[in-house]
């Protein structure tokens, strides 16, 4: 067999070893390509699920902190434009936050305090002010307003 230095000789010809090894390399590469692509898609899906879960927990935690802060406490939350390129919506209800992304739905539980209007829908790329407002002597509720 020829040495590596003789892979391409001065006459412009290529050694048989080089051709064969390239063929074997290409065959292995072809069979691996499908598997690698599959794993990359899987990693992307996992990232989407993880980001979605973190997002819904973050919103629930923010509402909880506003509620536990007492009357007059407020927080501003800005939602990212997308989760792995997919648009999403977050729905606030008493005791739970729901998130819908890419046909999937997830839920995070929070303190079962009253939400103004019973339900509030939040959209990506928007900022919201979440505040704890006292409505009467023994009743306060979470009021969410979009910041324009």
């Amino acid at each position: 067999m020829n040495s590596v230095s003789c892979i391409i000789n001065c006459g412009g010809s290529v050694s048989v070893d080089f051709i064969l090894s390239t063929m074997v390399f290409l065959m292995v590469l072809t069979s691996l390509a499908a598997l690698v692509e599959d794993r990359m898609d899987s990693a992307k899906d996992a990232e989407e699920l993880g980001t979605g879960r973190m997002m819904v927990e973050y919103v629930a935690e923010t509402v909880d902190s506003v509620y536990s802060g007492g009357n007059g406490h407020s927080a501003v939350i800005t939602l990212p434009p997308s989760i792995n390129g997919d648009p999403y919506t977050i729905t606030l209800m008493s005791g739970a936050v729901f998130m819908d992304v890419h046909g999937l739905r997830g839920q995070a539980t929070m303190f079962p305090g009253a939400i103004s209007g019973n339900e509030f829908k939040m959209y990506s790329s928007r900022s919201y002010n979440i505040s704890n407002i006292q409505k009467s002597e023994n009743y306060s509720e979470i009021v969410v307003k979009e910041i324009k």
Partner: protein
Amino acid sequence: MQFSLEQDSRAQVPMEFILIMGFTFVVSLVFLFPVGEQNELNIALASARTGAIEGANMDSFALYPEETFKNYTSDHSALTKPSTVRIIRIEYMNHGMNPSYQKEKIQIRVYASAPSVRTPGERNCLGDRINYHVRMSISQNFKTENLTNKVYNPAFSPRYVFTTGDVSWV
């Protein structure tokens, strides 16, 4: 052993080259079928592993398709909270030629762990999701979605038909 244009001014290749290439071709033909079969099984099992991990991730992060989420909210509310679901290993068993499909039947069994989920009903739901993704991943990889049903059961590859056994919880 070199195919050199310098040695061949009349556009002919040496006899050794022709013999070697011919021999290589014949040997390749002999090994082509078993290698192709094994390669197909390897690809299917790699897809099964990817699918199982996808299903386990979905179970772990508790993000489900809307219809499933609705069912879980009413019947298995514990599954709507995140939990730890890990794939331990995946085994397969060859059940030989299946006369209905004229393909070799392979049953895949996933071994998983979910310490925080204890009731059999809830574990069954998690296992079904994992198995669904295993079959879906195989069908999508071999582009045989049109040959199977809505839940990808069974999943097909050109030479094999794949089913999934109940997930074993360890």
